[in-house]
């Protein structure tokens, strides 16, 4: 038994040593690195995206690899099938649209150099950019636009609805194409900007199934590999039509469901961008060398709604003075500080910063005395009884928010119970207009324009917010058919004024998004709908 014992003794000694070493080692953090100041950069929707194509191409070479950690698995890499924002962003690296939306909500050229709207507003004629090539080397022409529309307006396509806004797409000549709608539709252009990814005619010679697994576009990056549940890799398109772009050689999207792992990976420098962090995660990364935290308001407006369609009918909330009073009664800044550690932005309305026509209005200040005065003016010096509902945990920290609101309303004399209801049941009741006269909800938009939010919440037929105001309805309908961008911006201006004087809601806040970005990344500017373009981004080493 002796030789055996000796062997195992030695073996286990080695094991012990290894374990002890491993146990000690973590304490020895590398200290040789240059420690840079960690800074918080707040991205606001102010910068105009460069879309000028320089006449004299400067020689350039894309450099480096950009790695992005995603919180959800990419389910599809064709834009019209991509189910959520992160998959859409990843897909867009390979495609271009005809038009591009600027950070202020206005539209600029992309694959189309210019466009013209017919006098009746039903036909938009696009002049296409010439000399653009698909990744397989074929030329981009009007036929490809027609094919893209035909392919993606089919019933079987997940987001066909974004394409069927147009009733037909017709080729005029090789570089001119008409997009036709049955009625003037103001949402067509912004919708195209975020959804119409142009693909080559006949799927570039692939079968549809092959195309879904390895698509071809005109975009800044070329498909390289896609391992479901793991990563999507795209490489720089050497013939990209925006000269001088893209700036990075390769982009890797990695699927990392666990927040703690994303935080660790960005610290280790394995990923450059870690999106969708909580404020706690973000705080834990403050002071880490080589990592900066960016935060920006998300285009989702939280609001306290009034129900004038069913339960609130004939109650004090029908008086605009009462509704204004409630806005003064709620200390939203206090709620943001207490509940969100200050990490949220006050909402000023349904037209959010970055939306077309945003007028930069100031939020209503907290002034409970003013609220009481307004209530007295409206004939309720002693307040009134009214219940309020809230989707239980339907949004981050919403229960705390609702409790604070309920307590503050109580202070000015609006007494009532707070009904916390299971979120899905809550939204079901909301659709059926069964909620109490006061309730809390939120609405986001993804096309840089407030219309879908206004229409969904307030338009007759939908009135998801359980509020109907004929004048407002008319204004929203007017926006929908005003295809001209400037005229529409002016209408948004008017509706913002009207919605302040006759508020259908008390506006609460826009939440904030946190992302950790390594300092080697330049030019990364996510927008309020968590959308971004990567051709502008570069990395330094």
């Amino acid at each position, binding site marked *: 038994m002796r030789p055996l014992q000796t062997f195992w*003794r030695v073996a286990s000694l080695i094991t012990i040593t290894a374990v002890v070493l491993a146990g000690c080692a973590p304490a020895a953090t590398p200290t040789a690195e240059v420690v840079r100041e960690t800074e918080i950069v707040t991205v606001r929707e102010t910068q105009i995206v460069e879309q000028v194509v320089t006449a004299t191409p400067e020689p350039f070479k894309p450099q480096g690899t950009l790695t992005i950690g995603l919180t959800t698995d990419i389910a599809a890499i064709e834009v019209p099938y991509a189910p959520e924002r992160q998959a859409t962003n990843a897909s867009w690296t390979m495609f271009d649209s005809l038009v591009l939306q600027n950070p202020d909500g206005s539209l600029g050229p992309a694959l189309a150099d210019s466009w013209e709207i017919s006098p009746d507003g039903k036909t938009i004629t696009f002049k296409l950019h010439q000399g653009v090539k698909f990744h397989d080397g074929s030329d981009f022409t009007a036929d490809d636009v027609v094919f893209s529309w035909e392919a993606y307006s089919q019933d079987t396509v997940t987001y066909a609805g974004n394409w069927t806004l147009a009733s037909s797409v017709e080729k005029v000549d090789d570089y001119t194409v008409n997009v036709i709608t049955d009625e003037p539709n103001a949402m067509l252009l912004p919708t195209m900007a975020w959804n119409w990814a142009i693909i080559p005619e006949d799927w570039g010679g692939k079968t549809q199934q092959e195309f879904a697994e390895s698509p071809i576009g005109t975009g800044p990056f070329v498909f390289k590999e896609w391992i479901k549940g793991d990563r999507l890799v795209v490489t720089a398109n050497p013939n990209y039509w925006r000269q001088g772009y893209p700036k990075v050689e390769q982009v890797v999207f990695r699927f990392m469901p666990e927040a703690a792992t994303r935080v660790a990976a960005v610290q280790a420098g394995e990923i450059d961008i870690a999106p969708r962090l909580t404020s706690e995660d973000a705080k834990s990364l403050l002071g880490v060398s080589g990592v900066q935290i960016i935060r920006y308001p998300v285009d989702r407006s939280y609001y306290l709604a009034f129900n004038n369609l069913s339960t609130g009918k004939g109650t004090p909330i029908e008086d605009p003075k009462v509704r204004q009073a409630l806005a003064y009664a709620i200390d939203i800044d206090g709620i943001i500080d207490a509940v969100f550690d200050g990490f949220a932005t006050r909402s000023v309305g349904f037209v959010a910063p970055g939306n077309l026509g945003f007028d930069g209005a100031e939020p209503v200040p907290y002034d409970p005395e003013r609220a009481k005065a307004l209530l007295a003016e409206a004939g309720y010096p002693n307040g009134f009884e009214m219940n309020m509902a809230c989707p239980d945990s339907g949004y981050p920290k919403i229960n705390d928010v609702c409790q604070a609101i309920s307590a503050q309303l109580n202070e000015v004399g609006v007494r009532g119970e707070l009904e916390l209801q299971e979120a899905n049941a809550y939204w079901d009741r909301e659709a059926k207009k069964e909620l109490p006269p006061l309730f809390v909800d939120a609405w986001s938009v993804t096309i840089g324009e407030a219309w879908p939010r206004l229409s969904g919440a307030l338009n007759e037929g939908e009135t*998801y917010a359980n509020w109907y105001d004929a004048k407002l309805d008319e204004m929203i309908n007017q926006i929908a058919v005003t295809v001209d961008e400037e005229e529409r911006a002016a209408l948004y201006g008017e509706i913002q004024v009207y919605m302040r004087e006759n508020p259908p809601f008390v506006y609460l806040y826009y939440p904030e998004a946190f992302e950790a970005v390594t300092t080697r990344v330049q030019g990364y500017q996510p927008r309020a709908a968590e959308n971004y373009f990567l051709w502008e981004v570069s990395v330094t080493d």
Partner: protein
Amino acid sequence: MQRHLINSLFQSILVLIGVLVMVFFMVRATGDPAAVMLAREASPEQVAAFREQMGFNRPLYIQFLDFIRKALMGDFGNSLHYRLPALPLILERMPYTVYLALVALVMAVVIALPLGLVGGASPNTPIDWIARAVGLLGQTVPPFWLALLLIYALAVNLRLFPTSGSERWNSVILPAFVLSLGTMGRLVRLTRSSVLEIMGDDYIRTARSKGLMPRVIFFKHALRNAAIPLITVIAVQFGYMLGGTVIIESVFSWPGLGSLTAESIGRRDFPLVQGIALFTSVVVVLLTFASDVLYALVDPRVRYE
């Protein structure tokens, strides 16, 4: 032996039927899929159309019979999220999970068996203390916590391993180690206790008294007998590893079946969750059955029963 095998085959089938029933009804008990999968702004007409299309509007027992009929033919339906048939999606992820589990199993066996054998053969020595510590810690340390600790210590601070993913050759080491711990602990304890028990058995005493070399006693008599329960445990543990990687795969962003499971449950991707549950059950049942066969082959007592 035949009776033994027929018995275990029969049990396997029973287990599978039970799994089918449970999977089908449990997934549906968690809520209305249409409410979860459609945007909440969806109109009642859209919801109705969706239910119709997915067959959610039919009576439950008809949905169940349909589910069984198709499952028997390998058709688990289309994933709602990926819009692709569930089975190929599962098969695509399977190799990653099998690879991870195999590496973990090797780690567990390589570390646990020697420790257990030596610990059992020479109780109350330092090596035995280590064996007992590994046995205890392996089964009690929470994998999620350990995983994060290892990521911070070895990946973030020392940069010895990648934090996550599957790209590099050494990506598998951390997740496999964490996954192996539970099995390692169990194996160490089991090996140690069976060696300890066997070494006190009459036939070992007989072997000693007739003057056999300790090495021969240990390898020929003790080890063979100790190996028998280990086979079953290793097979069961391997099955457990295949199914039990959910947390570990998610933490390490490992693109296997476990992270697919976690994601699919979160999205209420019914067909995919059902497919995964069925698939892993079949694998575990097969493994158990295989270990029964192996058991019979290794242990004559079972064969001649």
